[in-house]
């Protein structure tokens, strides 16, 4: 079900029209909104979003009934001439995740971006872009042709960039500009790879290509260019210059979309490219390289996150770390034949993407409510938040728990699957990183919660009260992420039987405690605890007791932060990009 069907899909399957509808409906909504104008834009969005979600659910329901993927041939032309849309288990899972996040964000944004609140065009633009992002993402999840994926990727970028600069301040414009330029560089590299592949094989259809691709130098160069271009758009570790300012500067509802969904678009194309188009091509060395970047992202992103003073920047750096986590699945997916296989490692990686999408969006929404109520989002000034916006703090905590990989979250199931794959393959070093990812996440979530639960040190000037609906939307999304592990994934992803998802014994509980305990230790060592918390007490005594170790750890993390500044300098990032392309080509070459 995961691998492209061996026979050429020459006809549209029953239910194939759903695939077209899932792209057409958001786009029709955009056009309708332009016709009806400012006043009705929110109404249009609220009409389109339930319909789109229903289509996603219908695709989920239709998929297990047929054999193989749902297919729709545009204009009834079969692939070498025409373009096919295909939905397999991976697409269905991502479609559902996108629909869930879009719904929650729309409910959250209903108050912020209501047409009457501001004189500016921001509300109008927000709703249009929300629908545009949805349409582009659905095209990415369903596209069966590398050039369709390129166009969808560009649409996604063009919709995401204005979201960054929605508030129109100079620094957000600058962040949007950097994002756009770096993303364009990435997509040109992808297009270059596409041109090479077309020149070699005369087709860009994924199923046809997967049968024609062979180990030849030009194909390796194409694969390396496309992978690197997509990594630039996903903001994997050394190519992350645009992500922190862009995600932290956008309005919270937009940050939730950008962090939860937009980076998953290019990640999904990497998965398609490596698993569906050229499973035999990347080879062991390239997979180790991509996962090593992911591992570096986990350590680097988490350490810098712990040093941030602003909550939204902390969450943005946490996204950087979690993106790294997604790439750990690649070396674990190798089968005995030396090809990437769609086994439990792929299922784990996809589950991780889905649970990160929901949890991180919930986290940004909760942070948005906290920001709106307190009027600022400096972490040391969060005191009293636990009393003033309890639901949002709860949503933040729950999404944090989901991200850490606590049962029964989707991330927990994903981690189990990946650990299992690592044990089978004997690649213990990735198991260490998988655990470290959970521990680091625990550290910064605990850091924020400790401040949020502290009593307010002074009479905090209140912003406006956060709308209750928005808080509930964040909470619902966090709960959704925390319950993902209980869903019947077997119909969509190849999850082996007898998995630990449904038994809660002592071993499960001890696994759950590991990220919490480890996180506490890391938070004490690396967190910025200044100014000290509202409650004096044992906490400060503890900090004094571990003084020397903490000083050393802090010196190290200061060094990492300086490294981050250097890496986010434009020329450094571009040179990293080019050297990565060369490294990928070289490491793929090693493999054969």
């Amino acid at each position: 079900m995961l691998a492209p069907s061996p026979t050429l899909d020459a006809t549209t399957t029953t239910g194939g029209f759903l695939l077209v509808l899932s792209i057409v409906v958001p786009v029709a909504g955009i056009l309708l909104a332009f016709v009806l104008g400012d006043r009705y834009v929110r109404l249009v969005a609220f009409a389109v979003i339930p319909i789109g979600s229903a289509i996603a659910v219908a695709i989920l329901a239709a998929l297990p009934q047929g054999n193989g993927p749902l297919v729709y041939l545009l204009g009834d032309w079969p692939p070498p001439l025409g373009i096919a849309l295909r939905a397999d288990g991976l697409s269905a899972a991502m479609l559902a995740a996108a629909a869930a996040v879009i719904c929650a964000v729309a409910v959250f944004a209903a108050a912020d971006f209501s047409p009457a609140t501001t004189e500016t065009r921001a509300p109008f633009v927000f709703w249009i872009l929300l629908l545009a992002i949805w349409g582009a993402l659905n095209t990415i999840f369903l596209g069966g042709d590398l050039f369709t994926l390129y166009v969808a990727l560009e649409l996604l970028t063009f919709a995401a960039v204005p979201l960054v600069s929605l508030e129109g301040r100079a620094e957000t414009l600058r962040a949007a500009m950097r994002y756009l330029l770096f993303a364009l560089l990435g997509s040109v590299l992808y297009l270059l790879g596409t041109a090479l592949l077309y020149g070699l094989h005369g087709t860009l259809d994924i199923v046809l290509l997967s049968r024609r691709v062979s180990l030849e130098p030009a194909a390796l160069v194409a694969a390396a260019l496309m992978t690197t271009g997509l990594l630039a758009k996903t903001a994997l570790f050394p190519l992350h210059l645009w992500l922190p300012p862009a995600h932290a500067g956008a309005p919270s509802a937009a940050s939730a979309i950008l962090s939860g969904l937009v980076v998953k678009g290019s990640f999904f194309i990497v998965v398609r490219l490596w698993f569906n188009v050229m499973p035999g091509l990347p080879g062991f060395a390239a997979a180790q390289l991509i996962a090593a970047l992911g591992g570096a992202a986990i350590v680097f992103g988490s350490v810098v996150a712990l040093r941030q003073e602003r909550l939204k920047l902390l969450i943005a750096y946490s996204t950087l770390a979690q993106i790294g986590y997604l790439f750990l699945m690649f070396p674990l997916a190798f089968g005995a034949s030396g090809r990437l296989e769609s086994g439990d490692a792929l299922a784990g990686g996809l589950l991780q993407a889905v649970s990160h999408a929901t949890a991180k969006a919930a986290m940004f929404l909760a942070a948005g409510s906290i920001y709106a109520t307190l009027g600022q989002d400096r972490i040391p000034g969060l005191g009293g938040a636990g009393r003033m916006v309890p639901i949002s703090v709860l949503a933040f905590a729950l999404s944090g728990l989901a991200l850490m990989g606590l049962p029964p979250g989707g991330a927990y199931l994903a981690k189990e699957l990946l650990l299992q794959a690592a044990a089978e393959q004997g690649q213990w070093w990735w198991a260490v990183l998988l655990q470290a990812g959970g521990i680091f996440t625990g550290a910064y979530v605990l850091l924020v919660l400790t401040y949020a639960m502290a009593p307010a040190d002074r009479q905090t000037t209140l912003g406006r009260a956060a709308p209750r609906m928005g808080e509930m939307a964040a909470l619902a999304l966090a709960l959704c992420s925390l319950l993902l592990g209980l869903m019947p994934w077997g119909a969509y992803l190849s999850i082996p039987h007898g998995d630990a998802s449904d038994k809660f014994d002592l071993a499960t509980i001890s696994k759950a405690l590991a990220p919490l305990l480890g996180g506490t230790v890391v938070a004490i060592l690396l967190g910025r605890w200044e100014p000290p918390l509202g409650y004096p007490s044992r906490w400060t005594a503890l900090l004094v007791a571990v003084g020397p170790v903490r000083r050393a750890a802090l010196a190290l993390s200061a060094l990492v932060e300086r490294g981050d500044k250097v890496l986010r300098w434009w020329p450094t990032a571009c040179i990293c990009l080019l050297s990565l392309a060369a490294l990928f080509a070289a490491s793929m070459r090693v493999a054969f």
Partner: protein
Amino acid sequence: MSAVTVFGLCAAAAVGLGLYGLITNPQPLRKIIAFNLLGSGVFLLFGVVGRRGAAASIGNDPVPQALVITGVVVAFSATALAIALVLRLFQKAGSTTLSDDAPPGADPNLPGG
């Protein structure tokens, strides 16, 4: 040297020049122009691919041409969006430098980090 080879080398040169410009020029406007040069190189490569693929029977393979048309539209809209952002940035900040581009340590108090 056949025409296809010449065009291929031209495409490579345009891609190389575009990459160089995109990396080294600090001003956004020049970066945008460099991106367009880079894009033109890729489109030229598509043309070369189309000519090579069907040299024997028909004069040209039409699919790469269709891809190039789409690519040109995408590059055009990217350029329009980028120019709009530059203009807006100039109106807001009075300059168009991406101030984060200053070497690290030059001025730690710069906004936008």
